[in-house]
């Protein structure tokens, strides 16, 4: 290109840019401080959920439809492909869904930038939610959102394959050693012993069982690279390299529950949501749930929780709160529990739940010794990086994976 043409191009470009820069300014930049005008009367609520599967999607859709009919509003449930990303675009675009799931691990990020409406004091009988769950969703002393439910991890055993492998109830593992021994027996029969999600949300349980965890109790410092964690991760790596543990992708499955449902593995470690998924997708699978095998430091599991977030920019906050109220009523929580196997976040229906689902005892019992999620702000990309390390565990070095986490976590925690 000749210099003359280049100059002209530059001039033309700048002219055009200046021209349209000014029109864009005319279209009005929104003022972040402005309070969104509230609309009363029948609302059209958009509810975005990060669904654990068809079972959950359908249950929430049904519940929302029922609420909409009885209250005279409209409610559309949108199962997000990638909740974080879609919500991010919605928030940046200034038109987020009115109600959405907020995971405990992202909660601090949303609350700290003012994306959430703190409506905790407007919901009835707040004290009924488990205290630990309320604490999870409290930021700056304000309860931002109502806990939806919670779940814990346990061990699922495919009973049919179990007996096919020549195992009996006596073989159900309660310690790491027994788990390894049993897994070896299964492998000898040519079956995959255990399918395990390659994320911190599954492998992390082994840390807890060995007396470790990623963050200190106050959540202020990173404690990844400790002997307890390294030993736990080395143990998992050993099981992977020995072929006792397979990751879902290695079994052509999107998640462990699918591999387990297809009978591709004899055992898996998943939360109570697996019930609903199996019921829906693989109704023929017979399985039993037991507590996770204890590690050297005793029993340990992970707990997960989400809340019903309401967007600070929603036009229908009042109606949205009513909707959340309906979704978190004891009755509705039991209905959700039946549909996709989560545990109610309200203490008042705990007994009703245990009476209804005696088989879920291992999950409920897990609550006593469960480790909650990492919920500090700015930690998501650090945790993503840890996930990447865990995906490469078979060829990676446990100590350096954890040391890496510490390095990144320190930067994130210190910087916020």
């Amino acid at each position: 290109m000749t210099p003359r043409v280049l100059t002209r191009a530059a001039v033309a470009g700048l002219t055009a840019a200046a021209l349209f820069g000014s029109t864009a300014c005319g279209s009005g930049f929104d003022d972040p401080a402005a309070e969104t005008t509230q609309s009363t009367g029948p609302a059209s609520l958009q509810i975005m959920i990060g669904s654990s599967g068809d079972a959950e999607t359908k249950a929430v859709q049904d519940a929302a439809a029922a609420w909409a009919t009885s209250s005279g509003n409209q409610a559309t449930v949108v199962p997000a492909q990638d909740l974080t990303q879609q919500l991010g675009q919605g928030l940046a675009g200034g038109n987020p869904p009115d109600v959405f799931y907020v995971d405990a691990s992202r909660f601090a990020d949303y609350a700290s930038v003012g994306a959430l409406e703190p409506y905790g004091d407007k919901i009835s009988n707040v004290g009924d939610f488990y205290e630990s769950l309320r604490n999870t969703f409290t930021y700056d002393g304000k309860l931002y959102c109502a806990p939806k439910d919670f779940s814990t991890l346990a061990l699922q055993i495919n009973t049919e394959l179990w007996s096919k492998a020549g195992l009996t109830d006596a073989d159900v593992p309660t310690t790491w050693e027994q788990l390894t021994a049993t897994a070896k027996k299964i492998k000898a029969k040519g079956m995959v012993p255990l399918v395990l999600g390659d994320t911190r949300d599954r492998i992390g349980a082994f840390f807890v069982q060995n007396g470790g965890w990623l963050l200190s109790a106050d959540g202020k410092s990173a404690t990844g690279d400790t002997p307890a964690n390294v030993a736990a991760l080395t143990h998992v790596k050993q099981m992977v390299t020995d072929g006792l543990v397979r990751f879902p992708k290695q079994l052509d499955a999107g998640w462990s529950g699918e591999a387990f449902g297809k009978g591709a593995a004899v055992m898996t470690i998943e939360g109570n949501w697996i019930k609903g998924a199996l019921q829906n997708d693989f109704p023929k699978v017979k399985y039993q749930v037991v507590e996770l095998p204890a590690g050297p430091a005793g029993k340990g599991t992970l707990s997960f929780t989400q809340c019903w977030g309401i967007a600070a920019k929603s036009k229908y906050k009042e109606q949205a709160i009513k909707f959340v109220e309906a979704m978190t009523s004891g009755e509705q929580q039991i209905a959700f529990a039946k549909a996709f196997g989560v545990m109610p976040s309200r203490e008042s229906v705990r007994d009703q739940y245990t009476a209804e689902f005696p088989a879920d005892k291992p999950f409920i019992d897990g609550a006593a010794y469960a480790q909650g999620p990492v919920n500090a702000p700015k930690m998501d990309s650090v945790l993503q990086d840890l996930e990447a390390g865990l995906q490469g565990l078979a060829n990676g070095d446990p100590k350096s994976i954890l040391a890496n986490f510490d390095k990144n976590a320190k930067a994130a925690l210190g910087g916020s």
Partner: protein
Amino acid sequence: MATNMLRAAATATGGPDDRRRRGRRGVRANENIAGWLFVAPVIVILGLFLLLPILMALWVSLTDWNGQGSPFTSQVPFVGTDNYTRLFTEDGLDRRDFMTAIRNNIYYVALVVPTQTVLALGLALVVNNRLLKGKSFFRTAFYFPSVTSSVAISVVFLFLFANSGAVNSLLRMFGISGPQWFADSRGVLHLLLGVVGVDSPPTALTQGGPLGLTWWEWLSGPSVAMMSIITLVIWTTSGTFMLMFLAALQNVPVALEEASTLDGASRWQRFRNVTLPMIKPTMFLVVTLGLIGSWQVFDQVYVMSQGDPAKTTLTPAYLSYRTAFRDFDYGSGAAISFVLFLIIIVLTLVQRWVMADRDPDRPRWGRRRRRTPEGSAK
């Protein structure tokens, strides 16, 4: 597919020149107005959705905007070039991720560009063979994958490369047990080193290395998972480039080839000394279009792997998207986009420079001329 538009535009060089215009009467006043009216819609749209975005993103890349409200208010913290320095000089997660993405993309380019060029040229040579019939069928067959949707094709390849998928059952027919493609984060170079007995990295290579990755990590090669994406891309783009070669080959005069045959030149010599020089401009075009295109890989990564396993299919394009829309770090995401922009612009300029340098007859952008190769059969 955008490549098709790009290709069409890149190869279109126009018809006869406009010397007759010189003879026309003076500029009519209303042509001025009409001219601007005619181009107005295009200017408005390109200005609004191409130029303005670039300027806005440049601004955002200098801030710490977190995706709440407007990025153009005084509350948004201005951070200068922080977002850029974090990618290059600060030891941290941002740089690690960015460099990993760059590494992945370098290996991707290094495999995709040569393979698709050679394959496209090879196919074009065979299709161009005057002795063969059914040319148009084969041409159609080879080109068809290029016109289909990248998302739809990615779905098909997800199935082909599933652990119990078509590729692995094909391998099984030859007694090979295929890898678990999308779960396998092992680098191909590491695997090859493993074959010759280098199982664990020499400590010299794990101790340090430039830009936040160790030498050993830089030398991983594309991961097994990345190989399946590479295969997909080669499979879809070769057809397009084959057409370009084919068009160039059809311009190689028959007489020229026959003459060299008479000289007793072997087939290879004929190819090297006669055909290759004649299609050199197309060769450069194909290589540079390939280079530019392969730094933009996004759709396939989004659909097939989302950067997994272990970040080995992360590319700068996907990383910038993820950083902005998943981690709400729009400043950093925009900064990655600009670095990528720069890489591609440099490649484009190099292309133009090389084309201009090597082949002065070749039409260049912004100037018009016409030329048909001497001795052309047309």
